[in-house]
């Protein structure tokens, strides 16, 4: 940077050239401030979404830059929420990108005192085997002489925070497996 440029960039100088004699406005503005843009402006795409908390169903706009979610805010187009969010909805960014989220499968072996990391593929295989075993163990062809064709060997709880498609597959698979103890938060 030349001396001249430096001088011209010096707010004291700009106070006189930019008609801001008291140095409280335009002259004091820094280069960073001058080029400041909202981070949503740099988003690669805006993805339409719905708030995952309560059942009001507020519309959300999810801003993505470099395959990272950088901002989540209300979708003004939604006739239900008109772009507004409550504190939980407003915390969606922290919910989805915050440090509280686990990204590793953890395993606690029988009688174990600590978590151990486990490979996802292995975990899925172990769970599939255990499901089959429990299903067989709790199988009931009949109860009191009436055909039931079911298992009480395993149960499932959850669904009110899940997508309809997820609930559908849960109900479909577990019913086909013969499980009847399929429940969710509708009761809780």
């Amino acid at each position, binding site marked *: 940077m030349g001396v001249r440029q430096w001088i011209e960039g010096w707010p004291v100088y700009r106070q006189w050239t930019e008609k801001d004699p008291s140095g409280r406005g335009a002259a004091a503005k820094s280069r960073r401030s001058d080029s400041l843009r909202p981070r949503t402006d740099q988003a690669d795409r805006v993805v339409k979404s719905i708030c995952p908390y309560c059942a009001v169903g507020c519309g959300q706009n999810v801003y993505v830059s470099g395959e990272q979610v950088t901002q989540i805010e209300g979708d003004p187009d939604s006739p*239900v929420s008109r772009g507004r969010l409550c504190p939980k909805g407003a915390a969606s960014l922290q*919910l989805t990108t915050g440090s509280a*989220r686990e990204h590793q499968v*953890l395993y606690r072996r029988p009688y174990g*005192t600590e978590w151990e990391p486990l490979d996802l593929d292995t975990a899925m295989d172990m769970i599939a085997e*255990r499901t089959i075993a429990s299903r067989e163990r709790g199988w009931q062809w009949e109860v009191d002489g009436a055909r039931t064709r079911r298992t009480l060997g395993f*149960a499932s709880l959850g669904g009110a925070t899940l997508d*309809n498609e*997820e609930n559908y597959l849960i109900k479909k698979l577990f019913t086909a497996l013969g499980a009847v103890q399929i429940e969710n938060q509708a009761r809780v």
Partner: protein
Amino acid sequence: MGTSFGRGGATTFQQDLANSDCIVIQGSNMAECHPVGFQWVMEAKARGAKVIHVDPRFTRTSALADIHVPLRAGSDIAFLGGIINYVLEHEKYFREYMLAYTNAATIVNERFAGADELDGVFSGLDRERRSYDVSTWQYEGAEVQAASGKRDQLWAERTRHGVRQSGRGEAHGSGGAEIGTEPRTDETLEHPRCVFQILKRHFARYTPERVEEICGVPREKFLQVCELLTENSGRERTSAFAYAVGWTQHTVGVQYIRTAGILQALLGNIGRPGGGILALRGHASIQGSTDIPTLFNLLPGYIPMPHAHTNEDLATFVEAESAQKGYWGNMKSYLVSLLKAWWGPAATPDNEFRFDYLPRLTGSHSTYETVLEQLDGTCNGYFLMGENPAVGSANAKMQRLGMAALDWLVVRDFSLIESATWWQDGPEIETGELRTEDIATEVFFLPAAAHTEKDGSFTNTQRLLQWHHQAVEPEGDARSDLWFIYHLGRRIREKLAAAARDGTRKEADAERDRPVLDLTWDYPTKGRHAEPEAEAVLAEINGWNADAEPLSTYEQLKDDGSTACGCWIYCGVYAEGVNQAARRKPGTEQNWVASEWAWAWPLNRRILYNRASADPDGKPWSERKAYVWWDAEQEKWTGHDIPDFKATKAPDFEPEEGAKGPDALRGTDAFIMQADGKAWLYVPAGLTDGPLPTHYEPHESPFANLLYGQQRNPVRQLLRHENNRFQPSDGQPGADVFPYVLTTYRLTEHHTAGGMSRWQPYLAELQPELFCEISPELATERGLEHLGWATIVTARTAIEARVLVTDRVSPLRVQGRTLHQVGVPYHWGPNGLSTGDAVNELASMALDPNTHIQEVKALTCDIRPGRRPRGPERVELVERYQREAGITDETGTEV
């Protein structure tokens, strides 16, 4: 809601609240729990509507209401029953509406005896079995299928302990129960056995004086509410009700909602703009998870799960469960299409579309029974997907003990919630009741993907399916539940198929595995994680015809196997191959109903039963409240919304003799799912605990039932266990050991059991720890200090909470005594940033017999200053209380 009007969903939508002239928020703290929805209440208020908030505590909702009515938790039926009595006595009902659209004129058979005659119970009560024989509740001239001789005596006996206890009530989420042929009516409403007269007799004792004594609401205030509500209902004006779990979480929860249903039907507020009953649900897709149920007693679209014995084959099942009139008459098409969606080519007419593949129920299999089965070793594996029962469920200790008895447990969540770590640091580890080294349960924690990391639809509180698009791929091992369940199913199928190929399987094994191997399970996948295409699943839910073309309405469904549909009420969500739930035409570019934003079931109708917004002749009741009307020139129904009625059926239409299903509906039968086309003031079938709502005291109550000798709901569901002891109620020895009423609730700043809020610093700092709210009077009585500690004790456990002494909780005068209530938000647990004891540990497993929902909104407790004891002393304290109150296995289990 299903039993009153035909569908188990909010009758209206949130935006429509803006059109209300009076909004009653009861059993809900809308401003706190649904702040963004509350903007529509404010909108109504801006237009002059009155807002009434009925709640034990003065909340942020009350702060914005015109009137706050504090009432004793658990006395809502008495309050609403009082309003019904006021409406009937002062003839404030909307007579023309009532006559045209409700069953007020219908005559009930002479075997029926009401609670007014039988001191609080209805005819047909079997005290031993704790269940009702509902046949005496029927209309005159109409008989239930059971009596029509198609089933033998054995069936009847089995249903007593089968069907009755398994929550038939909920099966009417979409479609009223069947009642048979056309019942007799008396349009003059003077027949002593017509519903209107029965109603009058039933509610006659719900006088303002009684309301005051039971609810603690001064007479003057109660009458003010009556006046406001009735002044704002009728031809020109409409009022709306909004409720939430403040009503459902009781041993008579369904009847709470029924009471509001009766009131709204009498006042002519159903199906009309600014009217209705808005159920405010707490989870993003809780409506969706009952529509496509992850519930034991239902199949998608509110088709009941078949029971053992009772419904041996498809034909019998359909006969038993479907209706002759209304859209429920087509149940066979819905069910067959579902079976086709699941078992595809394997489901044929010859094998009854594999109806036999469905497992059969033998009673209740709710989450609370499951715990008992875990404890006795029957159930040894458990999937928890986005749920935290170690905090959120009633008597959470039982949940943890159940989990400690498992072989394996799979927890899918964002963070290490209490249900994943109870074996390490749960309360029982601290008290010494469990030792980590002794717990055999294998625990898998699988990180879940967030809504931004997957495609899918949520069904919101107004039955609106809204699609959320995937924004990014989930990191690390995090996966969607769709991925998990799809790949789990794929692996299980591969393993079973391999075993079958080995020839090591016995024949019985092969037969057992056939439903799994025949299952249609070939969804396309995408991306590096092989994520199943959610839209492909949605397309299956929507259904297709024989040419694999997407269906656009459930009226296209066939019972011959030529159509497949995963959930008939969602049929149309993928009409023309377009994801209708993903429609996002801005609200500002449409009329206020905004029909082109997403898609609502059924068939994108936003206000249900909106035929009733017009008079019997098809003309709007008033210009001000016009919504849907008959256009005589074009010979069709038209208006702001999509008519919830056959579009071309004229108001004067009379069905032909012998017509069935939808064709049997008259031009005035606005409640098209109901077997008689009417809103049910009186419910002749479909509920397990009475055709009319009756005030019962909560399962645990410091007061006697002033209205009847019957203290509690006689058929409430109780689960007995040494860790689930019940407390004595008023009049029983030891009742004074638990003199206060405790009610649980939510705060704006947290979400349910806290899994999605206690770990977020921005939310945790807003409500950093558990507290209880009490009145200054109770503080003085018990020596509790503001910001100090209190220990709250029930027969289940003792928890500690910081004390907030506040004017917002005021003592009530009930039955001449001063009643103190203790309010406790239930979001906390020991994990996360913001911590505290789990409040639902205090509650017992005492459930509504229809829905199996626990009573956590009104129970009794004691409160004392100081922190709770640590270690084994905590258990000893509870045992001391049990001894003092003389609690045994029998306490509280009286009919």
